[in-house]
């Protein structure tokens, strides 16, 4: 069975040489009917090496997720001027293990007349969708991403939208009022903010000019600059909507204890609850990784090539990979820290304010951003500040300066637009609120300029 060379081949990076020789040696031992139709190289490229990569990625991400829970509790403690878990294991490092074991041991309750299949399926869906995205994330040059498909970003978006299903089914399957309402609310929130994320990504695409994640990092590498400088307003919108997307921090109304008890996963307990829990944190990690790749240059740091060029030829590849991975980890960590930090500083949004923020603030901002960046790009192109050679942009320093300044300046028209749109919307407009409160209940004396309602 001859395998013609298809374009898929390149999506999976070729396996290293030692692995191919290893596989050939293995073939000798395997039975003939099995190995007759398979060429050792293909097997190595398409089966063994990806599995190894996936294994590594899973281990890394799972430990990261686990320790993220610990980090969150630690940081929240520090914010509240207390120490946080430091009893289990040295400096509390074993706390995640403890939580994990605790959840495993706990009795796994399925509510009466709940739809068993869907009840069990829901956490799996959300978990799977969270982890699938990892396949596309590049954490290092060349080999350091499980695969590099052409529509990476689109794939991520669609998978995250499928993730919403998990929550909906979770809420519905538990066959009780609160989870159902919680699921409705959180899924509505996720769907609307997902749209916002999509639009911000569109504005980023103007500069990356490709969907594939490696391509995005390569674009920033070729320009030698992170896109956050060009797309600062869209980065802010991205951050806010991402936080909302993962139901965290100021926007975690759905699961908030004071609101709907546990939101969609109140009925879950034990292992299923841990899966939901892991899925949430995995989502957080993934989203921050995307943010890092898209805006903060992924594994690329401006000086990296210069340093690699200094090293001897043999080590250059390994050095690049090492530097890439560390850079990527640091960036993800920074964004995660932002998540956690945001959680303990901002008050929770009321649900209608939350939706209003999504639809009346972030969405218009993203749309305006697309329009502005597009115009800026065309203007830049006309002025000859940016050339696109073979599908990839090339700029010299004047171009970069122009785009950075334009990016920053474009913040103001967006803010003006937002103000115009929400001029008299009740919830945010304090002036409006002050005037609409009936005179009888208002103790505060009106400032001279303001008219009573």
């Amino acid at each position, binding site marked *: 069975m001859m395998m013609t060379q298809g374009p898929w081949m*390149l999506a999976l990076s070729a396996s290293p040489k030692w692995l191919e020789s290893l596989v050939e040696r293995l073939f000798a031992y395997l039975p003939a009917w099995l190995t007759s139709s398979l060429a050792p190289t293909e097997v190595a490229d398409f089966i063994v090496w990806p599995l190894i990569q996936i294994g590594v990625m899973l281990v890394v991400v799972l430990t990261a997720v686990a320790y993220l829970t610990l980090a969150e509790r630690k940081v929240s403690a520090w914010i509240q001027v207390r120490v946080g878990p430091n009893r289990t294991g040295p400096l509390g490092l074993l706390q995640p293990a403890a939580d994990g074991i605790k959840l495993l041991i706990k009795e796994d309750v399925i509510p009466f007349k709940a739809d068993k299949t869907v009840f069990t399926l829901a956490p799996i869906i959300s978990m799977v969708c969270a982890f699938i995205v990892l396949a596309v994330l590049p954490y290092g040059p060349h080999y350091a991403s499980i695969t590099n498909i052409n529509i990476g970003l689109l794939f991520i978006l669609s998978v995250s939208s499928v993730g919403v*299903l998990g929550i*909906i089914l979770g809420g519905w399957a538990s066959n009780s009022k609160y989870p159902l309402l919680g699921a409705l609310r959180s899924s509505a929130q996720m769907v609307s903010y997902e749209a916002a994320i999509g639009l911000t990504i569109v504005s980023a695409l103007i500069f990356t000019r490709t969907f594939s994640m490696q391509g995005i990092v390569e674009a920033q590498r070729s320009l030698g600059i992170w896109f956050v400088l060009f797309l600062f307003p869209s980065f802010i919108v991205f951050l806010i909507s991402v936080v909302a997307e993962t139901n965290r921090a100021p926007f975690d109304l759905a699961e908030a204890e004071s609101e709907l008890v546990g939101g969609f996963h109140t009925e879950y307990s034990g292992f299923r609850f841990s899966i939901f829990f892991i899925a949430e944190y995995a989502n957080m990690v993934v989203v921050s990784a995307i943010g890092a790749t898209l805006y903060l240059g992924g594994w690329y740091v401006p000086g990296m090539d210069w340093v690699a060029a200094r090293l001897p030829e043999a080590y250059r590849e390994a050095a690049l990979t090492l530097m890439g991975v560390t850079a990527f980890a640091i960036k993800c960590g920074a964004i995660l820290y932002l998540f956690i930090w945001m959680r303990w500083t901002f008050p929770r949004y009321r649900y209608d304010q939350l939706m209003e923020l999504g639809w009346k603030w972030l969405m218009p901002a993203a749309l305006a951003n697309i329009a502005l960046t597009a115009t800026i790009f065309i203007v830049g192109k006309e002025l000859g500040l940016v050339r696109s050679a073979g599908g990839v942009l090339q700029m010299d320093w004047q171009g970069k300066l122009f785009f950075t300044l334009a990016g920053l300046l474009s913040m103001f028209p967006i803010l003006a637009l937002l103000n115009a749109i929400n001029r008299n919307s009740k919830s945010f407009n304090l002036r409006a609120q002050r005037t609409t409160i009936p005179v009888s209940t208002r103790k505060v004396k009106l400032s001279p300029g303001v008219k009573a309602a």
Partner: protein
Amino acid sequence: MLLVGWEAVFFWMLTLVALFAAVFTVSARNPVHCALFLISTLIAKGALFLLLRAEFVAGAQILVYVGGILVLFLFVLMLVNTRSEVENPFNRQDKVGAFIAALVGLAILGAVTYTQQRGGFFKTKPSADRMAIENAKPDPNAPAGVISADTETLGVTLYTRAVLPFEIASVLLLMAIVGSVLLARDRRQEETYD
């Protein structure tokens, strides 16, 4: 053009999944299960699109269809407390519908096989340069991520050859939004705004 080797394997797996899910979408008792099976059919189809090298469409299909429309379906399912139907819908007494649907399917199949018999669908053999493009290997030093130009070409097509339908589609969507807003207004809003 032919899917051979692994692609054929993938194809047959996905068709099985798609068919299996389609059958259950139609015959599942509980509407939510229908929705789930529909989701799986659509995802299988998305994968089939990938096989047919229509990447953007696959992504769009999953993003819009599964992420948007079916989420909406589930929303509505939850709001409307549907009880799962008592008996298997297929053994309802009026089988005429099934019979006619089968007839339509058979008719299409008949047409397809007949043309297949008479020498396949495409008389003209692919032109030489067409084949070249098909089997062309992207140059190794091209920047990563520029493997197939599907998305770019589609983008170009959308904005050059299909501009009018594009605009009409946008107007259609606008109407849909306005329509649904109107439908969703409750009585109080009705009085205040009309």
